[in-house]
């Protein structure tokens, strides 16, 4: 072999090394999803759990070969839980990263802002963990889909629980404490709407609006004690619930009234943060529970999440997990992530088997409102140390059927009398 032949061979080898990966990259088709989760502050845990669960779902799907020759990919940027910042992020995802789907968000305020970007750009936005009902009622737009329950559904379940409670533990007076923004106000309005709808009598003795992320609730606690309600409904979430419970406990607060938080109060983070300090007998719920339903699918999901991250998931995780499976199923049906209108059609009415589905039920997306339809299980805090560091979990479940929790057709927030 002369010198020129050697040079030629070398050139071929170099070219092969350089070009081959490019060719493979060009052949690899990607479904790009741009998520906007908060990664700092009190909602940071929700963001972290969501991203971990979404990546877990992506790994599961990609390991099985992806969807119709496509691999799934998630890009996440910290939304800082700020609407204006998330809007810029969503626009960047669409214009520069060319994502196929917008995804995520924890705060309803951010959700309401991002859904406008989705509408203007005709880009599908999969909402995984913000609960304000407005997104699927008056602010409905065809490119928005939500894969976790909204506050109306949890408050309808809450109202049914309170109705049944009258039989076993008669109550009459009620007070409310919730964060002073859309999410807190929606819950209170929708609970009253549902109590009225189900013919439950009640008398309001106090309504309180602390700031979101307030560090100190003591004056609220002492004022609620003075009101002496039979039931205190709490619309607080995350660290706010933790702080409220810690501060209320030495007053003997939980012996004096029923603490009732049917939307997010029963999230696993409360149990893991408070351990044995968490009082027994609180009535709580959340959008997913690590110990309900006791189906193989739920057990497997929780165990897989734990294996991957070393911690048990909060409910936010399951929303993100559901979102990725919704995307995968839609692309599988349509054959491509580029035909937005066909994807919208595919998502409408789609059945998505999820860890939170009890035996005999499969979650599905309502074709009219684009809201996922799921049941709600409300439980009571009981000793249970199967999910450390928690020492209490929810038990003594009451389960409400998905179809009983939907808002009446044409429901809007302004149909509710302001209080």
């Amino acid at each position: 072999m002369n010198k020129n032949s050697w040079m030629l061979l070398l050139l071929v080898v170099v070219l092969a090394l350089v070009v081959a990966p490019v060719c493979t990259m060009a052949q690899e088709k990607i479904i790009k999803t741009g998520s906007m989760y908060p990664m700092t502050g009190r909602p940071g845990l929700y963001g972290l759990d969501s991203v971990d669960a979404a990546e877990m779902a992506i790994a599961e799907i990609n390991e099985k070969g992806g969807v119709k020759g496509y691999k799934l990919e998630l890009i996440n940027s910290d939304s800082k839980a700020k609407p204006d910042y998330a809007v810029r992020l969503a626009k960047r995802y669409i214009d520069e990263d060319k994502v196929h789907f917008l995804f995520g968000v924890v705060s309803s305020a951010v959700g309401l802002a991002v859904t406008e970007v989705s509408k203007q750009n005709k880009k599908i936005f999969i909402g995984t963990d913000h609960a304000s009902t407005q997104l699927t009622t008056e602010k409905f737009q065809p490119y928005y889909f939500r894969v976790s329950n909204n506050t109306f559904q949890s408050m309808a379940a809450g109202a049914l629980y309170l109705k049944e409670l009258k039989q076993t533990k008669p109550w009459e007076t009620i007070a409310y404490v919730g964060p002073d923004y859309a999410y807190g106000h929606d819950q209170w309005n929708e609970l009253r709407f549902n109590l009225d709808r189900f013919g439950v009598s009640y008398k309001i003795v106090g309504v309180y609006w602390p700031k979101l992320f307030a560090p100190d609730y003591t004056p609220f606690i002492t004022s609620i004690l003075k009101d002496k309600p039979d039931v205190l409904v709490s619309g607080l979430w995350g660290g706010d619930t933790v702080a409220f419970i810690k501060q209320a406990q030495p007053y003997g607060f939980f012996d004096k009234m029923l603490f009732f938080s049917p939307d997010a109060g029963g999230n696993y983070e409360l149990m893991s943060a408070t351990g044995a300090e968490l009082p027994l007998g609180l009535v709580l719920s959340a959008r997913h529970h690590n110990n309900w339903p006791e189906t193989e699918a739920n057990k497997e999901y929780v165990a897989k999440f734990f294996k991957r991250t070393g911690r048990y998931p909060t409910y936010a995780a399951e929303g993100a997990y559901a979102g990725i499976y919704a995307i995968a199923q839609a692309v599988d049906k349509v054959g491509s992530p580029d035909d937005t209108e066909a994807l919208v059609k595919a998502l409408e009415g789609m059945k998505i088997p999820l860890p939170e589905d009890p035996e005999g039920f499969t979650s599905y997306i309502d074709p009219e409102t684009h809201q996922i339809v799921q049941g709600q299980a409300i439980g009571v805090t009981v000793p249970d140390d199967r999910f450390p560091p928690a020492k209490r979990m929810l038990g003594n479940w009451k389960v409400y059927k998905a179809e009983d929790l939907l808002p009446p057709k044409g429901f809007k927030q302004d149909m509710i009398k302001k209080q």
Partner: protein
Amino acid sequence: MDLSFILVQLISGLTMATLLFMVASGLTLIFGVGNVFNFAHGSFYMLGAYFAYLAVSSWHTNFWMAILFAALGAGVFGMSAEFLFLRRIYGRAEEGGFQILLTYSFILIIDDVVKLIWGTEYKTLLRPEGLRGSIEFVGVTLPTYNLAIIAIGLLIVVFCWLVLSRTRPGRIARASALDREMLGAMGVNVPLTMTVVFGIATALGGFAGGLAAPLRSVTPGAGIEVIIDSLIVVVIGGMGNFWGAWLGALILGEVIAFSVVIVPEWASVVSYVVMVLTLIFKPEGLFSPRKVRTV
């Protein structure tokens, strides 16, 4: 509103005020002595909470040792931040802008470091033995830990008053607030004074964080939650006025405690209303001497 309820609400306001004061006093001390607005002061409060958590959960120390460790740890970090970074911008033409940028960057860095070490899950600290319950007093329930916080706050006020007014270091600190150059000319090591004052102020913040940990959520971002209210306290009391911070905290704590009962729907904005009124009618702060305005 009966008398016993007024007493309960007063104590609620006082608990809130004491923790507010402990954070705000450090903020105002740094401003008074060093003319530095430390945006990151809340982050030292958060560090204190995490240090207390670390001491109890990993080293199994008793609660009070953990609180002391929290103060010490936050103080050492504060002194390092002053010595390594803030000192470099003193006296620059645009010092104010640099201060805000630099101390704001501390918030972001400290938050992320805390997240890397302890994760985003909420951490919890139990109240110390013997202070987990409550006492009954004239028919009302008062949590013993809240009463302890109020007592500790009063001790700190008295201690700081003694140090600032009766000791040589206290006099140096006050002199430094008035005229740093003259103090230097008289042979006092001014840079060292600044570092030590910064350390004491951040230690107060850390102490407050440790003390508040059994009542609140220990989480990254906890610093931001307290800095706004502390800033309001400092504005009400007068920037750099130590006693102003105490009285400002008392006013704010009680105003919030009673507005929750009287105007519950406005409770989340009353603190801002008090601040705005102060800025309109006495911008120097309620407890600072009125400045003579010259044209």
